[in-house]
């Protein structure tokens, strides 16, 4: 079931939390929502899940508008809010039963679904405990379990792995990936590595505006139109090599890497390629070129560029 957000705008007073955002998520796609605090991620999710209304624009889930028919939309969505609110005075299993009933899970299947969720989310030993007796991580698992109990077509997870231990994070990521093969998943996170590991596509949002949309590698490329290579050369002196590299036509900047011996980072001018020239230079001078590797920009840098400069 696809989710399409069309020109969505939402303001709190004078402040625009979400400013004319449009994007589309297809079935079988896991989309990661990235952005600094207060960028509008949570607000967008709240509008998709019909918790909030928007000032302008619309969200369609499987072609159904959240404004026109919220009840139909809500049936297909599983939602884990950022603060993970739960009825803390209820035992885990009763809580899951309540959610299953309210989500229209057929009576005959409720028991089976609860057991499955308890297994999948690793709640076996805790299922009879009251939720407020559980640790933060276990409460997060309960939150995930309630979001998935009705096997929703669309899963919206606001920071799903917060409070989990590393083992559980890996398990939950695998679970999300598995679900994402057939369902539509939108998740937000502050952890870039997590988004990169789990998501097919990344949306970066800043000050309510969508600033980037693409796969992790395409985002890197997009932000990096200048080629950077790391070069290590034996023979010659640091200074000589530096000067020769700098004199190459296609090279913009050469950096001497401080913790290596005779290693340099060579940045080419925009849309140019210096690798051949560097190789020829070494041949000419009789130096041994022992390493030449392209330097990939980290997603963190891409993120910082996109969200600080605006």
């Amino acid at each position, binding site marked *: 079931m696809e989710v399409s957000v069309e020109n969505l705008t939402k303001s709190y007073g004078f402040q625009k939390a979400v400013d004319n955002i449009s994007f589309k998520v297809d079935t079988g796609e896991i989309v990661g929502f990235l952005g600094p605090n207060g960028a509008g991620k949570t607000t967008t999710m709240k509008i998709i*899940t019909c*918790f909030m209304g928007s000032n302008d624009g619309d969200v369609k889930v499987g072609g159904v508008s959240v404004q026109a028919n919220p009840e139909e939309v809500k049936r297909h969505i599983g939602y884990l809010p950022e603060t993970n*609110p*739960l*009825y803390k*005075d*209820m035992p885990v299993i009763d809580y899951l039963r309540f959610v299953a*009933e309210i989500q229209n899970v057929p009576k005959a299947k409720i028991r089976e679904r609860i057991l499955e969720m308890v297994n999948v989310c690793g709640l076996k030993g805790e299922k009879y405990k009251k939720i407020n007796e559980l640790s933060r991580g276990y409460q997060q698992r309960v939150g995930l379990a309630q979001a998935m109990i009705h096997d929703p077509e669309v899963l919206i997870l606001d920071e799903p792995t917060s409070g989990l231990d590393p083992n559980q994070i890996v398990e939950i990521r695998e679970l999300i990936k598995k679900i994402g093969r057939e369902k539509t998943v939108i998740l937000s996170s502050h952890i870039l590595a997590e988004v990169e590991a789990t998501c097919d596509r990344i949306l970066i949002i800043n000050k309510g505006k969508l600033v980037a949309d693409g796969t992790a590698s395409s985002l890197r490329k997009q932000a990096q139109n200048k080629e950077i290579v790391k070069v290590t050369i034996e023979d010659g002196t640091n200074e000589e090599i530096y000067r020769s590299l700098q004199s190459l036509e296609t090279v913009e900047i050469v950096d001497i890497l401080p913790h290596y011996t005779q290693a340099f980072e060579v940045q080419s001018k925009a849309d140019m390629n210096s690798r051949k020239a560097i190789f020829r230079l070494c041949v000419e001078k009789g130096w041994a070129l022992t390493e030449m590797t392209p330097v990939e920009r980290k997603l963190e840098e891409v993120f910082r560029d996109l969200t600080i400069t605006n």
Partner: protein
Amino acid sequence: MNKIWIITKRELRSFFDSLMAYVMIVLFLGFSGFFTWIFGSDIFLVGQASLQSFFGISFWTLFFFIPAITMGLLAEEQKSGTIELLVTKPVSDWQIIIGKFLAAFLLICITLALTIPYYITVANIGKIDHSAVLMGYLGLLFMSASYISIGLFTSSITSNQIVAFLGALFIGIFFHLIFSLISSGFGGWIARLLGYLSLSTHYESMARGVIDSKDIIYFLSIIFAGLLGTELVLSRRHGSN
């Protein structure tokens, strides 16, 4: 309908799990029993086989107890954020509101059902007017429903249970006492209007065993107004501002 019942069931369970329901029932039975049988103008002093003194006491005890039941219904959900979970499930705001209303109402029904032994006892002592007793209970139920609806409304406008409790008492006291007090100081249409607005007038006429469509309409209007107010507050989150 099914959705409403799911919500009602959960609320009722949480009343009983949190001991709130037991405290309520014990206090209510304690108060009403004490004043009906032992102290003040109790049944033996009055010397009539009627439950008038019980209805008179319950009129006040329920007035104070109902806000305590309703104060958490929505305020607590707004404070803990669970309201976000609830409204993003496939239920309408009305289903949530009516579900919660019914839960509080059923708790009152259970409490009042436990006073039926009073009726049986009195009926065995002397000749009791059965229809008056029935009407008295009906009046209590209507009054309770009205205050639950007001309490639900004040619970929706805040995330602080104390504010919800005091707010419900504040609005309630006008219907319970103040309107009828003021109306005696006026004449003409103002007195009639305030007299009509006073809940005690309608309750008393029912407790005397008289049923009038005017009274029923009055109670239903208050219930509806409270629920509508709650719905307006809840749906404010969809607002475009």
